[in-house]
């Protein structure tokens, strides 16, 4: 991947890639692997971009698909190689930001299902319900209700933890 491609087509969207990758990982090492894999997949898939959607939507979609695939792979590997007695808590946070509230919010997001994580991340990034539906591949009518349900769940998890 050339640095030109990275600087022009990936770096402006690095923010959302970072945010998404953080929601699907719980250690710095995994986060860096996910981030790199997303960047490589964007570079590999660049020829398939048909301009039917925005480049940013394309980037979100690839980021999400890569994160979900890697998470699935990780779960499979864990099932094959790790004994049941070892801790498997997905939400355990092994790295932290300097902002405590953001840390807690991320921990709460990691407790959600894989798709709910994606929906709330895109919502927080101020994507419209239509855009979220386009990226996830679902009906926009259901997104609003789902977002409200996720927010209620997050509030419940965070209740009393954030002042």
């Amino acid at each position, binding site marked *: 991947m050339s640095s030109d491609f*990275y600087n022009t087509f990936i*770096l402006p969207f690095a923010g959302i890639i970072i945010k998404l990758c953080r929601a699907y990982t719980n250690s710095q090492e995994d986060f860096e*692997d996910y*981030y790199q894999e997303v960047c490589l997949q964007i570079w590999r898939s660049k020829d398939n971009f048909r301009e039917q959607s925005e480049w940013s939507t394309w980037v979100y979609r690839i980021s999400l698909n890569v994160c979900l695939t890697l998470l699935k792979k990780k779960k499979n590997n864990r099932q094959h190689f790790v004994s049941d007695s070892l801790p498997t808590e997905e939400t355990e946070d092994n790295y932290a930001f300097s902002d405590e509230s953001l840390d807690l*919010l991320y921990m709460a997001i990691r407790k959600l299902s894989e798709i709910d994580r994606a929906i709330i991340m895109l919502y*927080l990034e101020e994507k419209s319900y239509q855009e979220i539906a386009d990226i996830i591949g679902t009906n926009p009518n259901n997104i609003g209700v789902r977002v409200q349900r996720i927010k209620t769940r997050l*509030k419940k998890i*965070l209740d009393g933890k*954030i*002042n």
Partner: protein
Amino acid sequence: MEKSIENIWKEGFLKSDALVAPKINDLYNKKSIHIIDKFKRMFRINLIAIVVFSFAFLIVSYFVGIPLTGAIFFVTLTVLVVINKSLLNGLERIDKGENSYQYLKEFDQWIKKQVAVNKRISKVLYPVIFMSLILGFWFKDAEGIALGERLLSEVLNRFPDMHLIYGIPLIGIVVLILVLGLLAFFGGRIYQWDLNIVYGRVFKKLEELMTDLESLNT
């Protein structure tokens, strides 16, 4: 909870450390090592499976009455395992510290050598295995006499003017040589087919990774 989720999100990312992108590095190295480790694991399991099978077959062949087949199988497969184990040792010597492309190149060369050696072996292996089956059943005890001799005497009763060479019908020798010849000729191809079934996916991934790296280098 006083702050809204939206505010926590917005304010949290205003701080400088939250959006630092990691550097793109080492991913191909990790991928290359992962693919090759996977291949090594599969190769090792394959060798263990051959050893277990040859042992089990040796025991079964004794009880079925074809110990000669079992013994030839055992010796032949043991030789195959020994040769492949020494090839695997060569693979262990590839330096993981090399850059990804070099590492994959060396692995690719190792694969080519391994395939070439095993193709040559297969040209002998399949005929030997076939011959061991013929010999095993020929000398199998059938009510006091060897099954082959019993079969031969029945054939000679039906066709008394059959042409024999060293007491064996010429037609039988011709068919045997023909089958052995075909197995020797197609041995390499049978091996390649077998190899693709077991390791096809790993080879495909390896090819994709090398193509990627080559396009990155250009």
